[in-house]
């Protein structure tokens, strides 16, 4: 199937994190450029070849935005904020259950809070980082998860990043961030992702 100009621009944008500055302007300029070339009589295929593969063009744009590793303190604070939010939501539910059903509810309630809640939290983290590069905590503390070249991470990378949380070896994984140049955890190195300071908004 032939790629349309809109498909091309969408693919370029999809390869960039949502927080990339001036995304809308990049799209408008590319659309304008393609229209201009089409008017001068060039075939769409030639024009798109001149612009390069969408992922490659996105990477060229992103290479112009310097990446600064997020400070470890801010990352810890963001994680704490991420954890506090669901815990704050779960505590009233467990309390209500306890008031309604008494002590018999407590083991059940706590199991739900840590097991079910933990799993939901894990899924939330993966989906949020995959879709926008940011959880609530990361948004609050101005940081974003990207590929090592600055591009948006894939679903697979989002899963691999969070495996240490799922299999309960998070603390060992975190230790790597103290010694690696770009402050990456072991599973961030493995997934070729990193956490950087989010670029200034437009």
């Amino acid at each position, binding site marked *: 199937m032939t790629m349309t100009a809109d498909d091309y621009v969408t693919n370029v944008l999809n390869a960039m994190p949502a927080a990339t500055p001036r995304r809308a302007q990049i799209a408008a300029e590319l659309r304008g450029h393609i229209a201009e070339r089409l008017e001068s009589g060039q075939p769409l295929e030639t*024009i798109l070849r001149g*612009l390069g593969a969408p992922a490659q063009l996105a990477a060229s744009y992103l290479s112009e935005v310097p990446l600064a590793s997020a400070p470890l303190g801010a990352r810890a604070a963001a994680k704490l904020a991420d954890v506090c939010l669901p815990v704050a939501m779960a505590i009233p539910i467990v309390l209500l259950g306890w008031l309604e059903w008494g002590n018999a509810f407590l083991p059940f309630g706590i199991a739900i809070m840590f097991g079910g809640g933990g799993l939901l939290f894990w899924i939330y983290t993966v989906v949020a980082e995959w879709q926008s590069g940011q959880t609530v905590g990361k948004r609050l503390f101005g940081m974003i998860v990207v590929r090592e070249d600055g591009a948006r991470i894939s679903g697979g990378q989002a899963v691999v990043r969070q495996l240490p949380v799922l299999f309960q070896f998070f603390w060992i994984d975190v230790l790597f961030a103290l010694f690696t140049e770009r402050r990456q955890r072991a599973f961030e190195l493995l997934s070729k992702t990193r956490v950087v300071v989010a670029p200034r908004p437009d």
Partner: protein
Amino acid sequence: MSPEPPAQPDRKGNDRELRRGSLELAILHLLSSGEAYGYEIVSKLTARTNGALEITDGTLYPVLYRLERAGFVNVRWETPGRGVPRKYYDLTETGRAELARLTREWTMFAKAMTDLLRSEEEPT
């Protein structure tokens, strides 16, 4: 076990930096005579250098993006009669200062290289 070969400098990276630096200078120079939009910049660069500095569209736009973020150019949008918006780039004062700096550096580099090549051509 054989020893590891000595580390080679990143030639690809150096080439890319050199190209990027010269392209930045070329674009700033072109904009010093007045505002222009992307397609116009590509066409002018190709025409004024008789095709020697033919750049791809995919190379130009990320460089313009960097110049804009660095504050070297101002931008304004205009939608001509046909309805497709154009983004015009114009040099800022910081951009002019950067152009002067890059021009000085480029001239010194080109002169040094020319002197070197000439001295090697001459019989000793």
